[in-house]
């Protein structure tokens, strides 16, 4: 039994080494004086300074954040409404059909989703004069966020006691108000987790944005891609280090919140 434990620990250690060593190297070289990616010549913060002075990156970051905010907000509203509607549909055939459509963007390879929307947006451009840019990327992001908004809310609706809503109405509450006072608070955790998923997916998306943005919109992943292609640029290392720390902090916080919640339960 002891031997097995040691083996498990060694395996886990090797796995973590494999997952984190490349990122760790990236971070170490963000403090490297020279542009070399193999020799450490001296300690510096200059790449971080340059990063924050790089207007292209800063405006792309701003673009990504506003895109994530807009797309996940729209997806949360439309998706929650859709989940409420789908939940009420009794006919099994219709329900299955709708759920299949919902899963379609999740299962389809991203590149196919990307080019299919691009084909539509090219027609938009020719017929309606809508250029590829913020609007088209927003439409694309809402489309791939919607399934996550719906799939997070549906289970909460199923868990909810339907008599709560009926009781509110029996006590004289009009249906719409009863919905906002009773149903929404009950399904709020689902709405929030769907929102957070949408937000991170939108922030992180490269492939679909790449095909739907034209030259009218730049997101952070798009800028990273253009920088990576030019090869040597330690600003990317600095950016990786910052993203790593931000993600680590967010995960730690969510972990702490979860642990506390479980303790309270």
């Amino acid at each position, binding site marked *: 039994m002891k031997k097995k434990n040691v083996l498990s620990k060694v395996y*886990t250690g090797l796995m973590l080494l494999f997952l984190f060593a490349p990122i760790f190297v990236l971070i170490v070289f963000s403090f490297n004086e020279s542009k070399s*990616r*193999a*020799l450490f010549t001296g300690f510096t913060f200059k790449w971080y300074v340059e990063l924050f002075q790089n207007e292209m990156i800063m405006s792309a970051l701003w673009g990504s954040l506003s895109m994530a905010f807009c797309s996940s907000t729209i997806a949360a509203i439309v998706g929650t409404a859709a989940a409420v509607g789908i939940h009420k549909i009794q006919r099994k055939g219709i329900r299955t059909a*709708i759920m299949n459509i919902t899963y379609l963007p999740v*299962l389809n*390879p991203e590149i196919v989703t990307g080019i299919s929307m691009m084909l539509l947006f090219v027609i938009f451009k020719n017929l309606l004069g809508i250029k590829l840019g913020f609007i088209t990327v927003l439409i694309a992001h809402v489309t791939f966020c919607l399934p996550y908004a719906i799939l997070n809310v549906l289970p909460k609706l199923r868990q909810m006691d339907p008599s709560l809503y009926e009781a509110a109405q029996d006590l004289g509450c009009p249906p719409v108000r009863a919905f906002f006072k009773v149903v929404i608070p009950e399904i709020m955790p689902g709405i929030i987790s769907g929102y957070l998923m949408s937000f991170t997916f939108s922030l992180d998306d490269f492939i679909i944005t790449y095909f739907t943005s034209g030259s009218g919109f730049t997101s952070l992943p798009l800028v990273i891609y253009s920088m990576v292609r030019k090869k040597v640029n330690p600003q990317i290392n600095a950016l990786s280090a910052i993203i790593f720390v931000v993600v680590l902090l967010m*995960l730690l916080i969510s*972990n702490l919140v979860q642990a506390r919640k479980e303790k309270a339960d």
Partner: protein
Amino acid sequence: MAEQTRHRPFDMAKLTSVPYLVWMLLFTIVPLGMVVWYAFTAYPNTDFTLQNFAGVLKYGKTFWKSIYLSLIATVVCLIVGFPMGFIMSRMSERGQRTMQMLIMLPMWMSFLLRTYAWMTLLENEGLINKFLGLFGIGPFQMINTQGAIVLGMVYNYLPYMILPLYSVMVKIDQSVIEAAQDLGADGFHVLIRVILPLAVPGIVTGITMVFVPSVSTFIISRMLGGGSNLLIGDLIEQQFLGSVYNPGVGSAMSLILMVMILLIMGVINRFDSDEMEGMLV
């Protein structure tokens, strides 16, 4: 009468899914319909043709290479990820939470940065070759090879294999394993007869989540494979954003890719449900 007023809000509620359905029709169904349309017409004309598919045939080798490399990556992920998922599932609650976080951490970083990290490690003047050089070994040509592409796939998508495996295996009660051992099963038989069948749903999810993005990637092949190792994704990207705009052939390729993936997933999922039925009986 009272009955009726009570049911009316229910009917109204169904209508709230209408905006969503219109949205999906416009931005999922119609675009996919356009892919089919372009695949069967001779752009820029609208005549029916099979020429685009004939054009794809030229690239048959690339299709096989994409499938071959992503299959290797999927198998490696399964072999490496399975023990990890199991080890995780037997940890203390706190250990499980920490490990989940650590596995997810690289996942939340942009996959462009993860791939870039390997680019800098594998290049001819990179850290690995410099390190080996200290011992007088190498330098090896590592970047711009098929091996580098597989490594990039494994590194990027391994967490998507580990997490579903873990979440299935964490539900296997330790007493089930002990019962098998008490009944005389050795380690190998516990694995084959008890753990593996119970882990099938996780294996299926893991395979799908690794294979689909691997087979359709164009970033990993471009960054780690150089110009000479094109995959399906690169070909599709070139038809739409390359120097020649050729939506006909690009759509035909996308259609083939999509149908291929749906078929493969259909086969895998059938395997899953068969196993499940077998388990329930």
